[in-house]
């Protein structure tokens, strides 16, 4: 594969990841804090970047690790500053980029290959299922790495699954709008 293609997909995936991250933390989290003022955890209940991770892994497979790495690293640096190089943070970064492609690989070996480009018809329910599995893997491993309280596991899980579903829903509506506008033009 050409270096240029790697660069393009890395730039695109990381940019989309950063956009989803800042949308979540700068726009959705303040709203969440208004409605759930007593919610102690810093976890987002609609974590859109998980959707980006899952869809990128579905589209690119293992290449998504490289494609998302710059974006994930920047978000950890944004939140943790120089602490980004602590072992727990580096583990968090690794888990973030590895969980989804690992789950797709596991599903491909154990059941059937549902990734983009496989011989099967794209199946959004299967992608949601893989996203839920990836949310469990990410939540358990990340919270182990950070030593978070048990309730955080559930908060991360709900945030990841809802984030994936909402992202797919928004993309579906955007594509639908583009298609219908194209037909009416």
């Amino acid at each position, binding site marked *: 594969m050409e270096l240029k293609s790697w660069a393009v997909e890395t730039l695109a995936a990381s940019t989309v990841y950063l956009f989803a991250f800042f949308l979540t933390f700068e726009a959705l989290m303040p709203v969440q804090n208004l409605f759930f003022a007593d919610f102690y955890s810093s976890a987002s209940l609609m974590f859109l970047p998980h959707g980006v991770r899952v869809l990128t892994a579905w589209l690119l497979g293992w290449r998504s690790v490289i494609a998302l790495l710059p974006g994930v690293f920047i978000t950890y640096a944004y939140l943790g500053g120089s602490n980004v190089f602590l072992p727990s943070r580096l583990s968090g970064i690794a888990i973030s980029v590895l969980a989804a492609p690992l789950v797709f690989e596991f599903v491909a070996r154990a059941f059937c290959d549902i990734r*983009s*480009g496989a011989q099967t018809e794209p*199946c*959004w329910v299967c992608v949601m299922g893989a996203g839920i599995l990836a949310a469990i893997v990410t939540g358990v491993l990340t919270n182990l790495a950070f030593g978070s309280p048990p309730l955080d596991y559930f908060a991360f899980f709900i945030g990841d699954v809802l984030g994936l579903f909402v992202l797919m829903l928004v993309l*579906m509506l955007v*594509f*639908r709008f583009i298609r219908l506008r194209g037909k009416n033009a």
Partner: protein
Amino acid sequence: MTDISKLAELRRLLLGMERAMGLEELSPVERDIYYAATELSNQPHGVRTTGLLSHSLMSNVSRPTFFRALKSLVNKGYLSQSSTSRRGVYMVHSPQV
């Protein structure tokens, strides 16, 4: 796979979601005609109107409703009139993504 085909794959994935949510733009009669046409499309030289009209899915559909829906399917790009055959023969197309 090129960047464009990746985008097309993503659109195909989300088109499945759109269908599952009942948001696709076909009416029930249009959908039935399309299903029938898809089933009959393995015949050579396209699908004939008479074949569609006699399909079991069309048993409760009046002729005016059938022809209105057929015209609408052509306008939406799901069917097209065969360029090589005489009138009343249609080619089936995949929904646009």
